């Protein structure tokens, strides 16, 4: 079943075309990776799907429903959870409170005036933290966490409303290689057990080839190759772009 269908998505900044007519589909339960050099337009694609950016033209269909140009909160409500390339969390809240905040929204109580927020949905939040492996950090403020742990907080937050689709823009950036694999194994397990789909991007080719069911390659805003890992690995154009080497992730 096609969960996400992206048609001819296009975005330019001023005169600069960051994404040009990119289209693809994503099946339920699938792990799809977008790869491409720095500045290829990966994050711009994520942001157009997630609602952070409005495409110039093109469509985004979630389960057949047109969600193009909806604001992020509306996209979220349709069942899309996401993480950011530069991790975004609430620094003044504890790890548990970050997840609780998402849960409060999920349960429609984010504007309640009287209950004590720190007591709401705490068990649920702790369970999610347990699942992503940072239960022991629950009471620490996000502003004090190691970067890798913030990425995990983001994952827990993104899972809070039981999404159908996860968007993960460089989920393992800033992590040591062992940690990267641990996180991607975790994501794969979650995707499998919940039957959801994930769209992610990565600069670490080991990670990409190990955990993607299918790969999209974009360069200068254009989709240049698509297919299962073996096919993409063998692609001439892709090899030319990467010069046979893996691309280091940006600092």
């Amino acid at each position, binding site marked *: 079943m096609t969960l996400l269908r992206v048609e001819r998505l296009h975005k330019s900044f001023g005169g600069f075309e960051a994404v040009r007519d990119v289209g693809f589909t994503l099946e339920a339960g699938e792990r799809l990776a977008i790869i491409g050099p720095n500045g290829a337009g990966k994050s711009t694609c994520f942001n157009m799907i*997630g*609602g*952070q950016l409005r495409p110039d033209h093109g469509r985004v269909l979630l389960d057949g429903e047109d969600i193009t140009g909806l*604001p*992020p*909160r509306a996209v*979220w*409500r349709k069942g899309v*959870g*996401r993480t*950011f390339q530069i991790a*975004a*969390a*609430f*620094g*003044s*809240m*504890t790890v548990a*409170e970050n997840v609780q*905040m*998402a849960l*409060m*929204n*999920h349960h429609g*109580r*984010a*504007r*309640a*005036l*009287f*209950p*004590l*927020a*720190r007591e*709401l949905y705490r068990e649920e939040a702790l369970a999610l933290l347990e699942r992503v492996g940072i239960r022991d950090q629950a*009471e620490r*403020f*996000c*502003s*004090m*966490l*190691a*970067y890798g742990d913030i990425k995990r907080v983001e994952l827990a*937050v*993104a899972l*809070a*409303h039981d999404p159908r689709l996860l968007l993960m823009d460089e989920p393992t950036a800033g992590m040591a290689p062992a940690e990267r694999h641990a996180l991607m194994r975790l994501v794969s397990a979650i995707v499998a057990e919940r039957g959801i789909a994930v769209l992610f991007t990565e600069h670490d080719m080991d990670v990409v080839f190990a955990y993607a069911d299918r790969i999209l390659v974009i360069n200068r805003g254009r989709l240049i190759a698509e297919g299962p890992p073996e096919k993409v690995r063998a692609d001439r154009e892709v090899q030319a772009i990467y010069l046979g080497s893996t691309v280091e992730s940006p600092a």
Partner: protein
Amino acid sequence: MDPGFFVVQFLNGLATASFLFMASAGLTIVFGVTRIVNFAHGSFYMLGAYLAYTLAGIFMDAAYGAMSFWGAIFLAAVIVGLLGILLELVVLRRIYDAPELFQLLATFAVVLIVQDLVRMTWGGEDLLGPRAPGLKSFVLVAGRRFPEYELAMIFAGPLVLGALWLLFHRTRFGVLVRAATLDREMVGALGVNQALLFTGVLFLGAFLAGLAGALQLPREPANPYMDVNIIVEAFVVTVIGGMGSVTGAFLAALLIGELQAFGILVFPKITLVLAFLVMAVVLIVRPYGLLGRPQAESHGAARAGAGLAAGTPLQRGFWLALLALLLVLPLFADEYSLKLMIELLIFGLFAFSLNFIMGWGGIVSFGHAAYFGLGAYGAALLVHHFAWPMEGALLAAPLVAGTAALVFGALCVRLSGVYLAMLTLAFAQIVYAVAFQWVEFTGGDNGLIGIWPASWAASRTVYYYLTLAVSLAGIGLLWRFLYAPFGYSSRAVRDSAIRADAIGIDPRYQRWLAFTVSGIAAGLGGGLYVFSKGNIDPEVLAIPTSVDALTMVLIGGVETVTGPLAGAALLTLLKDFVMPLTLYWKMVMGVLILGMVLAFPKGLVGILADRLPALQARPAERERPA
């Protein structure tokens, strides 16, 4: 009507525009490079006028002829420019990376200090300057007399614009200024000596302000109010033009100048409001002004804000003891102390309401007096014109203020950082101007008198208990909201709007709701205030009231829950004890604010929390790793 009249009116508008531009150009240049909205720009303007007065007196006594007049003006501007350097070295240099609130308050503190210094030096009287030699007469324009000096000044503005253009395009300094205005990082990367650049820019900005003030002298006497008057107008021009854009400021000055010249014919009653209305409209249509560019995320965004800790038993004990003390206070306090306590409670509520959005929502309101004052005026007008009882008026006060907050807030929360602060200030000034100019309804300058409590609450003790109950209820509710999902949502938006939006929070809507709630609470304080005083006048809506609230929050600690209460208490008591002892209260305030900003930016409660970890249930915040 006679066409000659329109021509003269048009020329008047041009002359006004010319002055407005000269007074604003420095402000916008300084903002462009340093990102600081410099309230003290008005002080420079005023100093320019006073210095020109003194220098012209000396030179003309020495009888150097026409040169003495123009020499005095130029020298005054240069001296003011040097004072700009002093300001940069002593104050601004330390606060470039501070949050907007600290920058605004610090430069406002300088305004207060300079006001008293000017009064010490030149006295409080209006000082009429000499007329410009050779430009004392009139010319005939379309059969009407038009002053020569005004005519000359019409050309002064474009002349300054031209000179600035040359400076910005033909000198290395100017090119750097332009580059820094576009992108500060880039200049740092070019290896430019940033400190020197900023000092130079302050000289330029202050020089222009001093020049404008000095040139103004032959038109209107130097007086101790001209600083605030001009800074408010210069803000309007700068914001309309787009902060950082000199050409924008020129266009905006033309717009405002002509609007004032002709607006006075069409709407003689709302001349004060007109400029602010235009500014509000421009900001609604173009949030960054005519030629402005969106600012990068405000300074605050990268910092991790304060968190909320659960109360410890020790803290609870403290508050219970304090409550008990407040309850038994009338048993041993005299009339006067009760009056003071009433004021303290009201300002506690007011400051708390401000920090509800500022500290906990990241919305720096520089016009919170509007909601406090609207509550007060709302209640007073209902009593005065419609003979409402106190109870009804007290209920209506928060509703009036809340409605205004709902409307103004909808427009304000679209902006952030300095632009938001300026728009909140603009709305407060609109309300002030209406209260001031709508004499039939509001009593104008004199305000309204005889707004006393109902007979059952007439005794000081009963009114004290009433105030205690109502203000504590207000504070208690806001306090609770902070710990509830509502407050968490506000804080979520403050910490990371992009994350908040990605988990279902509409950042703008949340800011709007918080703004409105805060306005309601401030209005409640205003209602209590007017019945405690028995009268009301537009001062309650003026900038100093907003600054008082900001100062209270600052003293207590922005990133604390109880700081605003401590700050309100301290400032109210300080005012009561110190004000009668000195003629120079503003100087005391200014030094106090400056000292807090530079030495204790965390405020009293913040310091206390750092010193006494036992008070805190959770560890203190650190910077977020990059």
